[in-house]
């Protein structure tokens, strides 16, 4: 098995990053129909950083995210979030712990408006139960007003005002990508997983995206983990990068280090 020679290199990551480990995966493995999609991958995400996972197609990047979201069961290895083990936590509990995510090809609630999508993002913060919802008690009304206000804050942050009342089906692709990030932010997560946030965006939109990501980290104090293809974006926003190929980790470290790493170059250029 290949292994990056300098995985500990990451110690020199940017000053803004504290040393608190927010999320830690060790020895993660999973396979589908005999193919090892992820093999013995270990990494940690620190509070307040932007952590990127790069790699050619089929490297297992999205699979790592799906493991964190608990869509798949890991065959080996453990995951811990804020020091607590989450390896066997059911998928729907992950969000309540503080991990939100977006999807490679966007998975929005297609028939609803941007606003409704964002309100659904507040689900984990609900305090009403079925009975008070059916009767729409004052408690439920107050909660709705609060959710609405908070959704507006996110709309302001990401500049989505003109899409607010539009159904998702009528939005351009770039806007959908942003709405998905907005919806994830409504969960008020501690860790935000962005799966290929720049795919399908034009260069201008990608540049905007890098500003948003910086805002999200700086203003909201959210830690970001990102799967990306676009080396430019990764180099601009990331504190640390993990490179993967064929389900194994090649190297982890600062963007400049990764860009020159021989194993990474080999994986990308195919020698």
């Amino acid at each position, binding site marked *: 098995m290949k292994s990056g020679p300098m995985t500990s290199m990451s110690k020199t990551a940017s000053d803004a990053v504290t040393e608190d480990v927010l999320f830690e995966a060790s020895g993660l493995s999973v396979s589908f129909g005999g193919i090892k999609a992820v093999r013995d991958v270990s990494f940690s995400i620190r509070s307040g950083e932007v952590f990127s996972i790069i790699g050619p197609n089929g490297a297992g990047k999205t699979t790592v995210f799906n493991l964190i*979201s608990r*869509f798949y069961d890991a065959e080996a290895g453990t995951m811990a979030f804020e020091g607590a083990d989450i390896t066997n936590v*059911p*998928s*729907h*509990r*992950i*969000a*309540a712990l503080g991990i*939100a*995510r977006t*999807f490679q090809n966007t*998975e*929005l*609630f*297609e*028939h*609803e408006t941007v*606003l*409704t999508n964002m*309100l*659904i*993002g*507040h*689900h*984990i913060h*609900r305090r*009403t139960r*079925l009975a*008070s*919802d*059916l*009767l*729409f008690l004052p408690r*439920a*009304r107050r*909660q*709705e*007003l609060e959710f*609405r*206000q908070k959704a*507006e804050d996110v709309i302001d942050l990401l500049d989505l005002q003109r899409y607010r009342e539009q159904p998702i*089906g*009528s939005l351009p692709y770039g806007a959908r990508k942003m709405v998905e990030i907005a*919806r994830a932010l409504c*969960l008020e997560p501690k860790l935000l997983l962005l799966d290929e946030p720049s795919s399908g965006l034009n260069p201008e939109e990608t540049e905007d995206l890098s500003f948003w990501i910086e805002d999200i980290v700086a203003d909201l104090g959210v830690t970001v983990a990102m799967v990306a293809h676009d080396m430019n974006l990764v180099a601009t926003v990331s504190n640390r990068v993990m490179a993967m190929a064929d389900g194994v980790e090649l190297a982890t470290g600062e963007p400049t280090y990764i860009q020159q790493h021989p194993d990474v170059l080999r994986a990308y250029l195919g020698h």
Partner: protein
Amino acid sequence: MRFVLKTNYGQDVNLFLHGGQRFWYGLLLAVVLLAPLVLDTFYLGEFALVFIWAIAGTGLMLLVGYTGLVSLGHAAFLAIGAYAHTYFLTQGLPFVLSVPLATMFCAVVGYIVGLPALRMTGIYFAIATLAFERISAFVIEHWEAVTGGHFGIRVPDATVLGSNVDGPVGFYYVCLGVLAVSLLATMNLLRSPTGRAFIAVRDSEVSAQSMGINLARTKCTAFALSAAFTGLAGSLFAHKIGYLAPDAFTVQTSIQLLLMVVVGGLGSLQGIVYGAIFLGLLPQAIAFARDVLPQRIAEIPGLEPGIFGLILILFLVFEPLGIHGRWVKIRTWFDEFPLYRKATYKRQRSYLRTERVR
């Protein structure tokens, strides 16, 4: 075209968007409240039936239109509601207690049936509900002590606040009141987290899961609620038909209920009412047509279900959004005239295989 200036978030939370809506719905309410003054008994009975269908439709719309689960067996809940209510009445319970009890009973049955069913998706769920309907029909047919078996059971007369429920005017108001409450409850649900969780499950299960929505529990809740509304309709339906026998509730009843929500317009509350009017009046229209049509056609034995089927096909092919969808299109056409674009409501098609691996 109307522009609504919003000045506070309460406007997004309220039931009605603007004064115009409040006016028109108020007018509608006044009309249905005063209708018994002018309509004769026959029409009151027909309208009461429409209301009953609409209550059942609320249940099915929550499930099919908002949670995206298709039930081919909702006649079972209509039947369970009817039989349970009748049983409670014969045990001497008053109407006002018996109806809620029957409704709760249906909710519980729905929840229990939903427990295993929640592991299934799409077609599997539909077929499981069909199987459940067949089995419950079997139980109803054979549990003679409670249901009267093949011979059936008479529905006792009941009173609310001292007045007879089975009189045409009284029954009309009871059905109208229950419908109003059902619709209000559903509207409340849809503007709060529970209802939005249903919608989330409908549009994307993975995404709903990553938003922290418990798929199993959400589906179960939806199914139980849906069963409760349908059972509630069933308990009123018992009074409408007066005598319960197994052949009052068949697979065809389930299909008719589905037909109602599809024709009315999936995913809209107005659609429930349109669908119920359609379902309630169609048999009358067909009966009328039988008199007019040449005898050879009029005497076809399966004419009524055949026409139901044909209408269903026509709607699915030409107007899958139902009557409500067509109305929205017409309204938009006038609003945007002369700039209306046909593509605004173009259907999204998906050709990718998402479920299958082999």
